[in-house]
């Protein structure tokens, strides 16, 4: 099968997966007990006004109508209005998506940089003390749930040393600029550091162990010996040849892990009060703001599915030897 046909087939499968995912999403959220207006009852919302609101939100329509409406909305990239904020969900959600992407993106970049380099070194220095300590360290990090790592970092760097801010994304009242400069400034990075580190510690294990394992295979290959015989400097062999050949499975796993990391962001966001998508889902689910919750879930799921797709394609792309199944 040619590359083109392969990619086309994958896209076909992607669409099918996607359709089923969306349907599951719809079913899940329609099954959810409680209705979004009830939050206001305690605030004194009269029963009549509540009924009106429910009608307006379309919760009284037959299910199939709601389903088609929902599909149509998603097709047009619209998510409806948030029930709580009474504002289009799109206005609310993208900021949170950006916040989560910054957080988890930087975490993963750090995790993969450390993981790949560390894993490569562990493989290169196989059988040494360094490798052993590396493995134990990495497994220990992987054994610690994110919230646990976060709490330790908080205890040490905030409560004890006082080096980093306690929570949030920006110093209260600081004007940090517009657009991308809202993120690329010292204050933001300073706030970002601990949550990012939490994720990085948690996610380092996968690339590090995988990298080490494939390194062990690669180092046994003849061409590594030839490269040594060629008199290439050790570093060059390590990074340009051994690591480069070991990185393939790591890259494909990266895509999958990226998806998983997005889902796991809720924990870090909770510990560090980071206003991201994960927390948005929890909040929105708790407050039965279905359009918002659905949109957040939808974006996150899309990201995961898309990254899995990218993983498949990346594999074909990165390894000249691969044959399309």
């Amino acid at each position, binding site marked *: 099968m040619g590359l083109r046909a392969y990619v086309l087939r994958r896209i076909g499968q992607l669409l099918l997966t996607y359709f089923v995912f969306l349907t599951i999403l719809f079913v899940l959220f329609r099954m959810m007990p409680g209705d979004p207006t009830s939050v206001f009852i305690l605030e004194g919302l009269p029963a009549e006004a509540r009924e009106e609101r429910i009608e307006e939100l379309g919760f009284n329509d037959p299910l199939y109508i709601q389903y088609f409406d929902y599909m149509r909305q998603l097709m047009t990239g619209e998510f409806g209005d948030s029930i709580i904020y009474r504002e289009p969900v799109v206005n609310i959600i993208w900021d949170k998506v950006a916040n989560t992407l910054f957080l988890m993106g930087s975490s993963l970049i750090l995790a993969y940089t450390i993981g790949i380099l560390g894993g490569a070194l562990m493989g290169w220095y196989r*059988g040494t003390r360094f490798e052993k300590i590396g493995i134990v360290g990495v497994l220990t990090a992987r054994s610690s749930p994110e919230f646990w790592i976060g709490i330790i970092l908080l205890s040490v760097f905030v409560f004890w040393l006082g080096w980093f801010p306690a929570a949030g994304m920006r110093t209260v009242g600081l004007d940090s600029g517009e657009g991308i400069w809202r993120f690329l400034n010292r204050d933001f990075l300073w706030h970002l550091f601990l949550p990012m580190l939490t994720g990085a510690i948690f996610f380092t294990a996968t690339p590090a162990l995988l990298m080490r394992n494939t390194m062990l295979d690669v180092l046994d*290959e*003849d*061409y590594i*010996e*030839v*490269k*040594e*015989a*060629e*008199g*290439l*400097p*050790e570093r*060059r062999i390590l990074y*340009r*040849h051994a690591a*480069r*050949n070991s990185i393939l499975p790591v890259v494909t796993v990266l895509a999958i892990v990226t998806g998983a990391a997005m889902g796991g962001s809720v924990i870090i966001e909770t510990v560090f009060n980071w206003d991201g998508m994960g927390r948005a889902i929890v909040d929105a689910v708790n407050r039965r703001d279905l359009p918002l919750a659905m949109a957040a879930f939808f974006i996150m799921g899309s990201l995961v599915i898309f990254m899995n797709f990218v993983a498949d394609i990346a594999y074909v792309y990165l*390894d*000249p*030897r691969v044959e399309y199944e």
Partner: protein
Amino acid sequence: MTLLEVENLRTYYTEDDGGLVRAADDVSFSIEPGETLGLVGESGSGKTTIAKSIIRLLADNAEIVDGSITHRGTEITDLSKKALNREIRWSEISMIPQNAMNAFDPVYTVGEQIVEVITVHERGTSTAEAMERARQLFEDLGIDPDRVDDYPHQFSGGMAQRAMIALALALNPSLILADEPTTALDVVIQDRILETIKRMQEEYDSAMILITHDMSVVAETCDRIAVVYGGRIVEIGDAETIIDDPRHPYTLGLRNAFPDITADDQALISIPGTPPDLVDPGEGCRFAPRCPFADEECWEVTPHPVEYEPGHLVECHRADEKAFLQAEAEKRETWLGQEVGDPTADRAPVEEVDD
């Protein structure tokens, strides 16, 4: 001036249980510029270890414990890793491994890999110049120069081996270590590759150490031949002498194991038994357990090389009985009737694997 001088080389491996494997044990030989030396022996005899010791490409658990290797007066064993990389490896001594398909890094094109070795060693050479040289090498070796942009997996086995030769010649080395360069190939192509190697070696005026277990290969290609057994060179001499007039029973046996280049009526006779365990071999000739001619002395006293003709050294107590040995060795019964007198023979025969 002698190109490479190996003296009393001892390379030992440490096993997991602490045992020492004497893979090269007191090996001495030398090579003149442009000369081709064949290292012949069964698998596990230590010939690859000798070659790898020369460019110090030994595994982590292997060590050159004694001896010296000098290349044009430079003591290789004393060189720092950096100096070794800069002065010896590939620029002076390159190698052709047995399976070229696996000897190229699969994620770069062959051209890129030739360019890499050139630019790393010759600072100041631009990538374009290096690539031009790679294309030139390809042309010399009869490969379409445009194929420098192909990935290794796009080459056939024979083609890859030629590309490997191109890589080995890229820096015009004074010595090439060819480790079973044709074993992985079809019989049909083997000869052609061997011819190519020979032709290129002459063209580039490099010396070569050809490692093989195949007597017929060395007979055709080499100026001199060293027969390796149990980590030692048991016989070394001119190609003609070793092929036509050997003195060591092992050489005689090896000769039998391959179709005679001259007489084709001979059936193949193989040497019974297996190569010796090199962990703590003890006193006595290491070939004694398999040798049809071994006597008491052979079992008890380690033989030392003796020069019988100029440049022809043999390590055997009974080497002076040349005529007798040669005559007996041609008889099939000599080898078949041999009662193997050593417990190591109980070991299951080792499959022929490339070492």
